[in-house]
């Protein structure tokens, strides 16, 4: 990457690191998890929304810290696992840890304030999340579950749309620089 490119994409990294209050960092993921386990009971179609994943992507992108991102992903994933009866602890944890790590790595290099970038990254990480979960489920648990690419792509678009909107809302919760 050239010096001009770095400046265009990253800008001043120190100035773009977003900070959040601790209660925001705690409440938002919990709310996302609660939404996923509670709302689909009444509105089943909302079960396709991966709000914990969207929150993980957002915090990892905005904090631009790989370690922070992987811990956020691990925390949200383990919490999500703990609320899933048939899900062994660690499956979503591993997947979201990797998503958080790579999202933070991406956030270190490109400007993630732009909505199009956010849309593309959300779409990509949703697909990556679902594919990695499928691989782990087959590899570690021996579950012969199908991987429906078309459905995953469609849901990726849906989650990306929702994610861009959610990210815009979460931007309001950032601490002012």
């Amino acid at each position, binding site marked *: 990457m050239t010096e001009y490119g770095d400046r265009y994409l990253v800008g001043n990294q120190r100035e773009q690191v977003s900070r959040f209050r601790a209660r925001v960092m705690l409440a938002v993921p919990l709310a996302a998890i609660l939404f996923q386990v509670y709302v689909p009971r009444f509105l089943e179609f909302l079960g396709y929304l991966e709000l914990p994943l969207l929150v993980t992507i957002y915090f990892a992108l905005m904090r631009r810290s*790989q*370690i922070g991102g*992987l*811990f956020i992903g*691990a925390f949200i994933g*383990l919490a999500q696992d703990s609320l899933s009866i048939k899900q*062994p*602890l*660690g*499956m979503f*944890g*591993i997947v979201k*840890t*990797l998503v958080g*790590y790579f999202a933070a790595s991406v956030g270190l290099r490109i400007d993630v304030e732009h909505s199009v970038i956010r849309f593309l990254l959300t779409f990509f990480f949703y697909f990556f999340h679902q594919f990695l979960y499928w691989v782990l489920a087959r590899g*570690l*648990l*021996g579950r012969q579950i199908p991987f429906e690419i078309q459905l995953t792509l469609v849901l990726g678009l849906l989650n990306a749309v929702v994610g861009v909107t959610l990210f815009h809302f979460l931007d309001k919760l950032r601490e002012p620089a």
Partner: protein
Amino acid sequence: METLLNRYRNITVLLLVIFAQLVLIAVQVRNDQDVRMVRVWSITAITPLARVLEAVRGGTSGFFQNYILMHDARADNRRLQADLDRLKMENQFLKTEISTADRAKALVAFQQRTQSRTIAARVIAAGAGASSRVVFVDRGSGSGVEKGMAVVTPDGIVGKVIAAYPTASEVMLVTDPEFAAGVVSQKNRVVGTLKGQGQSTCKVDYVPSEEKVEVGEAFFTSGDDRIFPKGFPVGVVRVVRASSPYQEVLVEPSGLDRGLEAVLIVLEGVHQAIPEVAPANAPIYLGTPPPPASGEQAVQPAGPVGTDADRLLEKYRQIGAAENHKFGEGAPGTKPPDFNIKVPPAGAGADAATPGRGDAANPATVQLPAKPSSPAPPPRGQ
């Protein structure tokens, strides 16, 4: 080191977190055989390493054993070769022993079978000189051996005693040029004189050219020389050349065929018959069947039948005749004849009048070969 850790801190933390969650999964999850995944993964991860290690260890061990430690193989090879040589020698020795035992056995059998009084002797030395056809045996005058006695083996004549010492005797072999003995051919009874030639073959002198002697024909002692009793094998004709006035007949002595180790010295010879040559169309003798077992009804064939099947057929025929039953007639299901009734044996009342089995009148028997003539009276003294 610290710089290295700082440089890879993020990826290290990531790997640690992932690893921790993997352990978490492994501890919780059981497979379909109710085995924890941590055990499955551990074994799955360990066994390939163990297999590799074992392969390396086995390969290394095999390499050392097969190549580095070859001196053991060489030592083993030398030892095994030595064992093989020793066993070969032992095998040869045992073969010789068996051969000697066979000869001794044959000698004893011949000694018991022949009517002549003989004494066994062992060849202990050969005469000096390359052309010597003389051997020494371990029986001498102390054992009753005298000069001029015949020396034979079951295969044929060997020679004659030319000197008897107290503990040994000197024997002139049939191949000695000075040896002579009266012989007669087996087939045409052609009489001649066997003489040694100093070679492996002997010649038969004084065979008139008009006499018929065939190659392969055997010669026996004729008893005319008053040394060898009549009827001992001499040898087989190998060469017959027409000449005048006498034929040239070469005989391979059969007494020396298998070497000389043990011989028989004829103390008192008894003439014996020369065996006849069996003609090619000699009649075949059928032995009489064994006597019937006790309690079994002996059934004699009425006609010229000799096999068990014939006798059984005849028995059934008699049973049918006794019950007025005709075999092969009658619808299926009709009462068969009683095969358990006792019928008188065929010709039972005529046994005294008819010749018994094995008699010449019975076609089941055929004529026997002619018996050899009784041996001539033994010569007394030499």
